[in-house]
């Protein structure tokens, strides 16, 4: 029981890191980025390949799994994404589906269709027993890392000058610009951080889902969208609660009532949208 709860929390934390970037671009900047999962794939590949080709230790590869997608994110944001900030949702959907369709064959072409494994170091594999509850070491590690990231993001958004500028830019880009805030730069940095976090999430998730392969961008897309939908557009905390709820429900549902399987999370999402289209953890009445 407690083990399942813990696995659910770990899965939720993972979803949170994967989706946090999306919750910022989608929830705050109002940009529908269906290609977010492609950045997660890049992060997963960076870790897998660094370990495989260079024999780098797992922990060392994680910063790279953040940096490479972040740099890719900033390049794409500057060249392509920014043109579509004001575009219609349909254009954004089409454009980002196009990017996903391009990303998957590129990965296939370079790296082949088979899944690349991330091999965990010894000290992260196996499980330990805490007060009689069996807990996988790696899941504990995930909860720790992701929890720290969530806390850092929340403090960053609420307490720092950059966070205040971002919130101002999101609320009203024109006024923020008039007040001397460099909105372009803020959006670019935010986008890069979000992409980097997706990459980090992809690297952490690789072991849980059995390796990284070219279909990775679509694997988590639905789950990420559900997290943002349930969590609502109210910044980091909503996404965190949404992700935890989804993670626990999904793991518990698959364990206790396997016959209905993935049905639960879709049901929860549709029910949420009926009751509160703006998300469960959102103040105000949305857009």
């Amino acid at each position, binding site marked *: 029981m407690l083990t399942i709860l813990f696995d659910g929390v770990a899965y939720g934390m993972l979803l949170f890191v994967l989706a946090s970037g999306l919750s910022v671009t*989608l929830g705050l900047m109002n940009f*529908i980025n269906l290609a977010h999962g492609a950045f997660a794939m890049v992060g997963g590949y960076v870790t897998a390949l660094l370990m495989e080709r260079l024999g780098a230790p797992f922990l060392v590869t994680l910063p790279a799994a953040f940096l490479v997608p972040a740099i890719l994110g900033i390049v794409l944001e500057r060249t*392509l994404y920014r*043109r*579509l900030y004001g*575009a219609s*949702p*349909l*254009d954004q*959907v*089409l*454009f980002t*589906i*196009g*990017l*996903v*369709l*391009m*990303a*998957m*064959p*590129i990965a*296939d*072409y370079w790296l082949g*269709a088979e899944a690349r494994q991330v091999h965990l170091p010894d000290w992260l594999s196996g499980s330990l027993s805490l007060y009689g509850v069996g807990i996988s070491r790696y899941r504990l590690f995930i909860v720790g890392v992701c929890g720290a990231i969530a806390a850092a993001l929340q403090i960053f958004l609420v307490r720092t000058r950059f966070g205040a500028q971002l919130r101002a830019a999101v609320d009203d880009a024109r006024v923020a610009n008039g007040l001397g805030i460099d909105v372009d730069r803020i959006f670019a940095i935010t986008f890069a951080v979000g992409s980097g976090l997706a990459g980090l999430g992809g690297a952490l998730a690789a072991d849980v889902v059995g390796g990284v392969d070219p279909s990775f961008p*679509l694997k988590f897309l*639905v789950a990420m*969208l*559900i997290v943002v*939908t349930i969590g609502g557009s109210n910044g980091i905390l909503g996404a965190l609660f949404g992700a935890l709820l989804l993670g626990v429900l999904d793991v518990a549902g698959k364990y206790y009532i396997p*016959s*209905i*399987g*993935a*049905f639960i999370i*879709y*049901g929860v*999402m*549709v029910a949420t*949208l*009926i009751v509160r*289209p*703006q998300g469960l953890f959102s103040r105000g009445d*949305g*857009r």
Partner: protein
Amino acid sequence: MSGASSAVARRIEAHLARRRRWRAIEIVFWLAALGTILAFPSRAALINEIVIAGLFALSLDLILGLAGIVSLGQAAFLGVGAYAAAILASKDLGDPTLGLAVGALAAGALGFVTAPLLLRGADLARLMVTLGVSLMLGELANRSAWLTGGADGLNFSMSPVLGLFPIGFTGQRNAALYSFVVLFVLFALARRLRQSPFGLALAAIRENRLRAGALGIATGWRIVAIYTVSAAYAGAAGALLAQTTQIVSLDLFDFHRSADGLLMLIIGGAGYLYGGIIGAAMFIVLRDVISAATPEYWEFWIGLLLVALVLVGRERLRDIVLSRAALVWPKAAGRGAA
């Protein structure tokens, strides 16, 4: 006062009647399509696929082009229509017309039930609701193996259309003609719908839902109605697909089905009803050509096309193609018609 308003009503009626008339270019389009089926019996299977995909894209055009609703879950109705027809056929009720009607009705009923979900929230919520519904149905079909065959799908055989024309592997040209007739009838219906007061009300809702409501248009019911019709069209497409290929599988509910339909519609251009059919033809021929050259990577080129389409601007690109095509290929000039 009443004299003035009836004069306005007469003018609107005359305007609609004028737009309802079939233009020469449209007649040429349909004759050319029919001629293509008759002229290339060896490619009948591919043409049949195009016709059915065209019907599916047309169903998306009804909600996107007419009412301005973006959906990522149209595959739900495709799947329901296909499975309804397939289950009927596997129970020895193999009459295609019956299966077609049942498939369309089942999908329409599902559309009617789920349409109220579209009335709340903004575009994003709609995207998610439609996507969520199609995922749920796919999962449902997967779990109800006693009815749907689960991951194995269903195999069944069909009776001849109207008891006369056998379809399937032995009669692929018949199958293509059958699909074509269904497409034409449903298209004519959609065309009539678009040039009706109901179509005008939808256009008002698409342009500005708030103002349309202020004008006294019951926007909620109009959206429910067009969504139901669109679902029935997608269901008919699914039923045709099941009947002419005589196989159904879970992949009918997949996200990529909805995305492909959207792509076809966008390539052809939304809002004038021919876009879906033209887009389907271009998409499938393109896929056929590219995947013959590079089977694994054809998605890349479709993705590149999409990105380019959005960056250049959908309308602008279409105008360029149209003006070029009109010079060498008069049929294409009809794409702006209706």
